[in-house]
């Protein structure tokens, strides 16, 4: 995604800066209610054992909200960490390498988290 002005004048980056900026904001807006819900849910679960946690994730609403939280969190994190890396790491090779590692790690963590939630929600885990 490029800004209309950038496209018209033909100046600036030919990459996807606007999309990066926009998705950072969309995920931020999503994370406002999701993170507040998560904090309240965690407070209620203080001291809970494994069975209580699984019972809780077994309900549709917590399971769905947890999956949404995981997606928004790791998307937001990968975009944010990319900017931090690009600002402070100046060697091109190290910068690119770190950005790739962060992207892949965020993807791996979100898959692991969603799998854990889904397996508890549908009751197939042992």
């Amino acid at each position, binding site marked *: 995604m490029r800004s209309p002005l950038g496209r018209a004048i033909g100046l600036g980056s030919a990459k996807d800066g606007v999309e990066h900026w926009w998705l950072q*904001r969309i995920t*931020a*807006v999503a*994370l*406002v209610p999701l*993170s*507040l819900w998560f*904090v309240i849910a*965690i*407070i*209620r679960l*203080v*001291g809970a*054992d*494994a*069975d209580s*946690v*699984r019972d809780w*994730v077994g309900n549709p609403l917590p399971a769905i909200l*947890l999956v949404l939280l*995981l997606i928004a*969190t*790791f998307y937001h*994190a990968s975009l*944010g*960490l990319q900017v*931090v890396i690009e600002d402070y790491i*100046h060697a091109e090779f190290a910068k690119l390498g770190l950005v790739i590692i962060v992207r892949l790690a965020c993807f791996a*963590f*979100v898959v*692991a*988290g969603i*799998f*854990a*939630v889904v*397996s*508890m929600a549908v009751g197939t*885990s*042992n």
Partner: protein
Amino acid sequence: MRSADRPLSPHLQIYRWQLTSVLSILHRAAGVALSAGAILLVWWLVAAASGPDAYQSVADFLGSWLGLLLLFGWTLSLFYHLCNGIRHLVWDTGHGLDLKSTYLGGWFVVGGTGAFTLIAWIAGISSWAS
């Protein structure tokens, strides 16, 4: 001059810190800390899905002094990043960018972070005690 030898701005040794710049760099620091906290969330979920033994080891770690310290740091980071993130979203609409509003909003964020963190931990401790 090679690019690596060039002086970097701001010159931190002589830089006069202000509320706005401190909050700006803290927003990044909190974001990086929360990324690590997100890994803990996944670890906790995977452990719960794996069974009682795996879950207990996570619960033991989180109940230790180090675990509680990390949880407190993450609570602080979460509420700070949340409050200051809303401040950023307001700026994105083009509002509140004058000097007075950035300072006022900044102090609101500091107060909100402290208040929310305190409330969350009081609620958490009373939930644990009951």
